[in-house]
């Protein structure tokens, strides 16, 4: 069966995957064009219109400073997705490089990598991220770095395991005999072959990276107000929940949830596509 036909089969089998693809393109569109799409300036305050419930003028209501919540949510997409994408890209790059080396060469390098990865995993990961941001300083760059560090073990482990089972494979032996250097074998022969499981890991990780970054900013780390960001917006709305102004926290929270849901579904769909045996 061709990949395309298989993809169509997976989609028809699980319509949720299709929905996730649609949602994904919507998110990307918001991230790219968000600021020019929104009806209001996300930072413009209007105290006269503070804490208004959803209406025709403000579809998702306004917050305590009278800012339009819909505009803020759409504009925040770029920052939230941006943090997650850069963190995941960073841990993918470092994790796969380190994991490939460890899996290919084995020995001392392997032991050191395994030890470092185990040490990271010995922490509850969100707590470690919090500690890193607290120590390095409260900036968006450090949020990206902390999220990258706590995701690193997953990539390093997958890359190590996948390279390790392939290092004696026929095509690797052939490449070695025809005079390819070790680095060349890793980069041109092994790395492309471990891409499918790594891609699945990426899309499963994206959702988690978004949750993490939003969680950190919810407790006041990283992104600072008044910048629109989903975690902060939920935190700002938290105090109004008890007095019944639900829309301030609900909509940004729902946006966050949908984004994470979308990436998790994509990850599951991608896994079905790549490895039908792994389906649960």
């Amino acid at each position, binding site marked *: 069966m061709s990949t395309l036909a298989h993809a169509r089969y997976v989609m028809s089998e699980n319509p*949720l995957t299709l929905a996730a693809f649609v949602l994904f393109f919507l998110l990307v569109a918001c991230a790219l064009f968000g600021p020019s799409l929104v009806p209001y300036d996300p930072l413009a305050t209007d105290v006269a219109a503070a804490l208004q419930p959803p209406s025709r003028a403000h579809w998702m209501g306004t917050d305590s400073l009278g800012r339009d919540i819909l505009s803020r949510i759409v504009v925040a997409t770029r920052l939230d997705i941006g943090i997650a994408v850069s963190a995941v890209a960073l841990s993918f790059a470092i994790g796969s490089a380190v994991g490939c080396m460890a899996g290919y060469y084995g020995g001392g390098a392997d032991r050191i990598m395994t*030890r470092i990865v*185990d*040490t990271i*995993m*010995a*922490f*509850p*990961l*969100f*707590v*470690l991220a*919090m*500690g*890193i941001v*607290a*120590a*390095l*300083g409260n900036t968006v760059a450090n949020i990206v770095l902390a999220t990258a560090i706590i995701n690193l073990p997953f990539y390093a482990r997958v890359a190590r395991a996948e390279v390790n089972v392939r290092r004696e494979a026929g095509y690797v032996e052939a490449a070695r005999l025809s005079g390819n250097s070790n680095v060349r074998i890793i980069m041109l022969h092994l790395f492309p072959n471990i891409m499918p499981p790594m891609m699945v890991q990426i899309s499963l990780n994206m*959702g988690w990276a978004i*949750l993490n970054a*939003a*969680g950190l900013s*919810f*407790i*006041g*780390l990283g992104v600072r107000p008044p910048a629109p960001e989903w*975690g902060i917006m*939920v*935190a700002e*709305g*938290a105090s109004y*929940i*008890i*007095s*019944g102004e*639900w829309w301030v*926290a*609900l909509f940004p*929270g729902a946006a*966050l*949830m949908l984004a*994470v*849901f979308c990436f*998790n*579904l994509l990850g*599951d769909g991608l896994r079905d596509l790549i490895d039908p045996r792994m389906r*649960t």
Partner: protein
Amino acid sequence: MWKLVIRRLLDAVPSVIGVVIVTFLLTRALPGDPAAYFAGPAASQQAVEEIRAKLGLNRSLPEQFVLYVRDLARGDLGVSLSTGQPVANEIVARLPASLELTLLGVVLAALIAIPLGVLAASRPNSWIDHACRALTTAGVSLPTFFTGLLLVYVFYYLLGWAPSPLGRLDPFTTPPPGITHFYLIDSLLARDLRTFWAALTQLALPAITLGLFALAPLARMTRASMLGTLSSDFVRTARASGLSRFTVTYTYAFRNALLPVVTTLGMVFSFLLGSNILVEKVFAWPGIGSFAIEALVASDYAPVQGFVLTMALLYLALNLLIDIFYNLIDPRIGFAT
């Protein structure tokens, strides 16, 4: 049995060393000069130098590490800048609140997730199977702080069933005498049902929030692992021998399917201890998570480092317990390796 426990304890030693090194490095990575920071803005150059010597910051990094480990061995986690209290005291006083919440969350999650997973696996493609799949996919996507707020809105604001989400007890109830410092257990020991009820109603929403979060991975794993054992040869043989459906499912399949679920518990605890911080913030829960957040807001680093270390050691200890439990329910592994 004891041999096994001791060996697992020895296995944990490298992880403990790693954790201590990382927390030490996090302390050293502080932006700026800690001595000047501790001395305050008005301090003279000489005062800063004195504090630097007192904190041991004028020594080499390995020497500082030895000092740090020595302090840790004495149970000294430093002094909180904002309260002036030793961090260790504060953490010990607040730990039971966090533990009570986390453990109740896990128990709730396991009580729902495991039967759900078993039911879903024994009736593939039924409505309960689809419900289980939907729940597990949705569950991992829920930001805990958001679910917590939703629950507060529905059960406190709309329905008025839950008390206001502020701490472990309402202001009119006195805490039960501290024996275990778990309010639920203490109030029962004191035969004080009114306090028990007050503590339970305060605890319900945060524990459900945490439970919902832990539910997804547990149900998913139970379902997958039950599907595996139900299609294995020994279950087919048991069925062919005419054993009842119940015996086959529970005595044969379930007991074997439980092993991977127990392993998943380790990962679940990692997520739970992390999201514990968020839930504590939402419900103003006086545990170590909200202690760390307060310290973070005040740029008070000693409590944050103490908190990270405590959480890591707690997580290691929980993993150790899970490991030992795993060996108890599966003796095949324990003594062979």
